[in-house]
């Protein structure tokens, strides 16, 4: 088993946090090997951000994802940059309000609004990354929801636990209803 996951967007969207949670859940709670790395510009907010996660049962040497089988893009810029590298039969998850994929690749395009429902539900965009994570897990099952929940509890103060849970659910529900109308693979 090896999952090569590339998460991309702009600084401040929580892309790196999402990657850490995913890799941490796989590593600490599911016994896989996992590695997470990132590249980003000098800006704390804005600018292009990518984070690479590899989850495998074999040792992981080269830590970067060149050809993801799971790609998440939260900006058009990120989509334009990375979509062309996706593996055949990969899954491309994006927010259809924020991203209009221009390239046609041999992959499943999973696009639905996430930013807008997050804003409607929470009134602020901070929960977007957890919502995306919920959607990603529902679609790919790279880790279990429970493992992610444990990571979320360890990483955030109790005041945020309920909001995180809600955001995770929101993403899960959005992906589940999308699956109801589209067929994967």
């Amino acid at each position: 088993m090896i999952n090569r996951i590339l998460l991309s967007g702009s600084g401040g969207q929580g892309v790196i946090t999402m990657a850490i949670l995913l890799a941490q859940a796989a590593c600490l709670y599911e016994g896989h090997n996992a590695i997470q790395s990132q590249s980003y510009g000098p800006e704390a907010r804005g600018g292009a951000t990518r984070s690479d996660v590899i989850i495998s049962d074999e040792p992981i040497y080269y830590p970067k994802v060149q050809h993801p089988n799971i790609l998440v893009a939260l900006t058009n810029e990120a989509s334009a940059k990375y979509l062309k590298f996706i593996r055949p039969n990969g899954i491309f998850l994006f927010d259809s309000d924020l991203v209009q994929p221009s390239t046609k690749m041999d992959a499943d395009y999973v696009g639905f609004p996430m930013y807008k429902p997050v804003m409607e539900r929470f009134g602020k965009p901070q929960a977007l990354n957890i919502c995306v994570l919920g959607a990603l897990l529902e679609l790919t099952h790279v880790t279990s929801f429970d493992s992610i929940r444990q990571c979320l509890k360890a990483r955030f103060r109790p005041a945020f636990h309920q909001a995180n849970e809600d955001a995770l659910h929101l993403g899960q529900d959005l992906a589940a209803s999308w699956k109801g109308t589209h067929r994967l693979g």
Partner: protein
Amino acid sequence: MGESMFVQGNEACARGALYANLRFFAGYPITPSTEIAESLAELLPTVGGKFVQMEDEISSMCAICGASLAGLKVMTATSGPGFSLKQEAIGYAVMAEIPCVIVDAQRGGPSTGLPTEVSQGDVMQARWGAHGDHSIIALTASSVQDVFEITVEAFNMAETLRTPVVLLLDAEICHMRERLTIPDPGELHVVERLYTEVKPGVAYHPYLPREDGRLPISNFGDGHRFNVTGLHHDIWGFPTQNPDSIEYLNRHLYDKIENRTNSLARWKEYYLDDADIVLISYGSAARSALQHVFDRRLRGERLGLLELQTIWPFPADLVRKKTAHARRVIVAEMNMGQLCSQVKTAVEHPERVFLANRIDGRLITPENIARCIRLIDGRGF
């Protein structure tokens, strides 16, 4: 085995230092080393240690020297520009034989360069950054777990030989996250400082090494009052211009490390037994090299990897032995061949040594290495 966590190389470094009984850290914020300072600001007080954020890189290096002489295990962490600024005081620590660990999280240079991107351009600066003849120890690591363990080694070597040890990490290793399993206490050997057996109040030669080159110390504030100086000094620590004393000290500072090159060598090796192409690499580049070796072994190609964890003193004997039967030696590093030049001087056939490098701020890829080998073998790029 103790607790497992999923952390960055920087945090592994901080935790490794604490395992080795670090009790004083002085630093200044600089990418990509900052998380070491942040971790220690949080963790040191919990064990009664002290973290101090100084006014600059220079004072951070000076402060750890002061704290070390008072008896604490000390460390500072920085990156390129800060490493440059620290060099004068690193030279002082060499001269005054002050045990300390300096982390350099290498980023793209020269100058401010690429604050958030990787490089291995400080290999020669680690060796020769301070002026004057001297020797130094520099260590590398290629995984989060290795960062922890090599940090403990860095303290052990610093304490054993009373010398600064440079932990030459890189942006990729510092920032990547992997599993770290904290060894139980006692699982890794931790060297404590060697104190003089001379009784308080009895004349003590602070700079008279033992037969084995080790130099027992006495803490500032304890029973032996002596002088420490960056000037050439005699066995009392008094400044001297006596040619015999100067030569003695120069040779001692050099020999105490260079004569131990073999015992200070730390390395990892993969598939070397039958390798006709030997890759030599270190730090994050070694991961790409290993990936390439692993991929090619699947195709039946006889590649192997020698990962050098000690790069200074350069383990020339080891490199010569491990590459003796190689048709090609490929040094994979992210600079213009700083370690490659050393490999060439170490091997029987320098014409068989080639550089596979990348210097654009990105981690060298297995494909980069593959292409270099293709080209060298006359099979095009």
